[in-house]
């Protein structure tokens, strides 16, 4: 399980935790997040920016 950080706003996506309120279950790998997903904090699209491994 890895963590990924939005380089624009600092939001951290933790694969182990997922984003249950958005229907992304715990354990969902970054690669399996839909391409039309947007950063919940800054709205930047997944395809639009780099996530860096924390």
């Amino acid at each position, binding site marked *: 399980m890895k963590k990924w950080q939005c*380089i*624009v706003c*600092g939001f951290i996506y933790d694969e182990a935790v997922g984003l249950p309120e958005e229907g992304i279950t715990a354990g969902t790998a970054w690669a399996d997040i839909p391409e039309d997903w947007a950063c919940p904090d800054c709205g930047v699209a997944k395809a639009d920016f780099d996530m860096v491994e924390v």
Partner: protein
Amino acid sequence: MSHPIIIIGSGLAAYNLARELRKLDTATPLTVISRDHAGFYSKPMLSNALAGNKSIQQLVMKSAETMASELNATILAHTEISAIDAAAQTVTINDGRVLPYRDLVLALGADPIRLPLSGNGAAGVMSVNDLDDFAKFSAALEGVKTVAILGAGLIGCEFANDLLARGIKPVVLDPSNWPLSRLLPAEAGERLAAKLTEAGVEFKMGVSASAVDAIEQGYALTLSDGSIVTADLVLSAVGLRSRTQLAAAAGLTINRGIVVDRQLQSSAAHIYAVGDCAEVAGLTLPFVLPIMQQARALAATLAGTPTVVKYPAMPVVVKTPACPTVVAPPAIGAEGDWQVEIADDGITARFVGSADELLGFALIGAATSQRQAMAQQLPPVLV
């Protein structure tokens, strides 16, 4: 070869515009001019960098050299602009060189507002508005036990929460009655204050500092009610004012920010503004979401497809882990009332208009999980 697009500034607005532009146009020469080191970093991360134990080096995600190579751009760091000649389409930099541009983008940012303070310690009051400021602030925290924070807005509350991670006691002063008073209804603001207080923040509401004096150790602040608070360090976080001096000197129309149209063009042809320095449809919004909307629209325009900027509903996340908070304030002047639901684990506040339509919201604690669902019901800010 055509003259370059010149971007002045290297913050989030500048670099996100450059990145968006390069997705659409890889050929036009691009120059980024910055008065600082021009490394890429995330300004929103500065207000929770202490808890994350981030060093200054870690906060710089990409150096100016890396950005230059990724963007295929010329980056002039530590370079100030002394003048813009809108008619000649040139900028003059501080070594006297005159650089022509095809299009000029002002991404100058904003300056922290400084309250008029008397006292011999007023000059020692710090503010954090960029990475260099943060480096100074962070270094000054060595051995510090208390920090007085002027202003209980977003930045004041976020820094207060973050200082707790260092075992430092923040004392937050604000003339209003509850934190984030311009964004939150009273019940929500009071819950935020209670949670942060529980975590170790001290609030002194209904007062402001009038004088800051240096004492043997740290500072003594004289408050508007005559009382005195002492602290090892003082941080001012009372808001931002768009940087407009350069644009004003070039004859551009200025109001609160550099006035631009929906295509982000200023009153002068070939000069645009984005980010904290820009005023779009009367709005200066120093947040990430509008900046990203601007960057995409202007990138398209500069790449040959004139595009107006649109703002969807843009909830703002307040980075106070002691009390998760999301706000989507109603438009200025919107008519309606707050309807507040209070639960033990959170607060849901809806700002509702006369036709029972949702115009804004504030969510505290567990209620923040409704953010997305509620944001979808909000009207866009700029259609």
